[in-house]
């Protein structure tokens, strides 16, 4: 069975039909791309998948359980993590704490131990530190652990967002334009990282991206959105040579 099955998903904002009859099926372990012109509704789809928007119709099944109607925190706990197009880090917190916030649900102790620093506090915090540093190490960011997140360079901030999303231990990771604002070298490095985390953490990745080099380089399957509806779906070679896609998005 597929990991994610989205059927007839649609949302209206007042009279505007932002996304209509959107279908997508993502197999476990796949690296899936969602592309399309600006304003096509790609981020809206992400917002529906993560519970930020409540879809007007349709269903979202993750591993067979329906996600529609759950709030963002619950959806995260059922195994969907995301990054944002405009970076949303916890700017006044350290890099390490940014990751530790995401470990919140996995490591638990009561408010009383939190207030008094007794009981499970020390052990749990030590385990959290270790886990957070492990994740940061994957991104080569261990040395930044003590810095404030807002003081990181742009590229590192993007990476930290991915690290933080991974810390929630997701089955499905949604990346919203991970390469936005990166230079070709950084993009190439990011491609390796994305492939690496897919294999290391055994997760499924759905990404939105405008950088065609990245899309063709790592995506195994693509869906093209245009004016809120699905234009076509298939392997990158087929999709990118589709005349309709060329006129709507890629240009001659």
């Amino acid at each position, binding site marked *: 069975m597929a990991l994610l099955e989205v059927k007839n998903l649609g949302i209206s904002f007042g009279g505007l039909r932002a996304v209509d009859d959107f279908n997508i099926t993502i197999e476990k372990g796949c690296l899936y791309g969602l592309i399309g012109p600006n304003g096509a509704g790609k981020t809206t789809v992400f917002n529906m998948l993560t519970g930020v928007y409540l879809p007007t119709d349709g269903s979202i099944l993750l591993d067979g359980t329906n996600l529609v109607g759950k709030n963002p925190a619950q959806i*995260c706990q059922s195994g969907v993590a995301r990054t*944002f197009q405009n970076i949303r880090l*916890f700017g006044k917190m350290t890099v390490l704490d940014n990751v530790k*916030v995401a470990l*919140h649900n996995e490591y638990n102790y009561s408010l009383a131990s939190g*207030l008094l620093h007794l009981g499970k506090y020390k052990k749990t915090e030590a385990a959290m530190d270790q886990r957070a540093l492990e994740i940061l190490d994957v991104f080569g960011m261990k040395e930044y652990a003590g810095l404030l997140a807002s003081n990181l360079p742009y590229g590192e901030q993007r990476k930290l967002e991915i690290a933080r999303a991974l810390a929630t231990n997701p089955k499905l990771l949604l990346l919203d334009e991970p390469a936005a604002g990166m230079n070709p070298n950084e993009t190439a490095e990011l491609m390796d990282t994305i492939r690496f985390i897919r294999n290391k953490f055994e997760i499924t990745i759905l990404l939105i991206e405008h950088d065609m080099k990245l899309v063709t380089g790592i995506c195994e399957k693509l869906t093209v959105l245009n004016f809120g509806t699905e234009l076509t779906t298939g392997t990158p070679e087929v999709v990118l040579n589709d005349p309709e896609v060329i006129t709507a998005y890629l240009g001659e």
Partner: protein
Amino acid sequence: MKNKQIDKQLIKNLAIIVIVFAAIEFLLYGDLLTRQFRSLLIPVCINVILAVSLNLTTGFLGELTLGHAGFMSVGAYTGALVTMNLNLPMIIEFPIALIAGGLVASLFGVIIGVPVLRLRGDYLAIVTLAFGEIIKSIINSLKITNGAMGLSNIELHGNYKNFGYVFFLTVITIFAIKNMVNSRQGRAVCSIRDNYIAAEAVGINVSKFKVMAFVVAAFFAGIAGVIYGHNVGTLKPTTFDYNKSIEILVIVVLGGMGSIKGSVIAAIILTILPEMLRSADEFRMFLYAVVLIAMMIFNSSQIKQRILSSDIFLKLKKTKKEA
């Protein structure tokens, strides 16, 4: 290695606390303090507790709240009613009063916390302001609180004679809030301040932790209220109007949002300052305001940064560390 560092920090903090405590006790028992200063000891502690607890909602949760005096009044009245109706020795009834005051105040924290979940920023500020006034008028009209006459003849369990007790409570409050900020719950609260959409997206139950911050802050405000009642001996609803809330907020802002150390220092300065200016008579409040403006400007100016990063200051810091 890291653990050892934390322990060192803890020992250093404890040493400072013991020294401060010993110094004040020495002054108290040696009768070296003027009556004016002696009467300021407990109010300083109360304001420290209030400021540090308000910092949890304003500095760490990042929500401007103007109803902190409301929680304080709930605690003050509850505590006073407990000790007035129990006829037990101080050692038993005062702790009961403190816990009761804290718990009832935190119950009000839930009551205010739940409806304001949907509000943010300036809207929330106005609602908490209104909430504080509602509490005041309820207390004003209830029989058990003796209406506008207020309560009097409250046993003075919290005055300077029991300074050690109050000091201990203040230290506990500071440690509790500091600990909370450095815990799983505190991180969740801070993440909501920094970006609540991202906090939700990494699985933080935003509503739960907003209410939690309100409840914990209200609990300690309640305790401050209990001490207040048992220091002054009389309670009147008008004491706890929005002026009091704003006074606490001023302390938090001056000390720096999200800085516990700052709140403590600002609480001490701003409690003592008006008394020091008493000799200026009718210019007292004017001078107070001028000093306040000067301190705010200094605090957010580059001069402070320059002083903090200047050679002399760094050297001082270094020698202090070596010693």
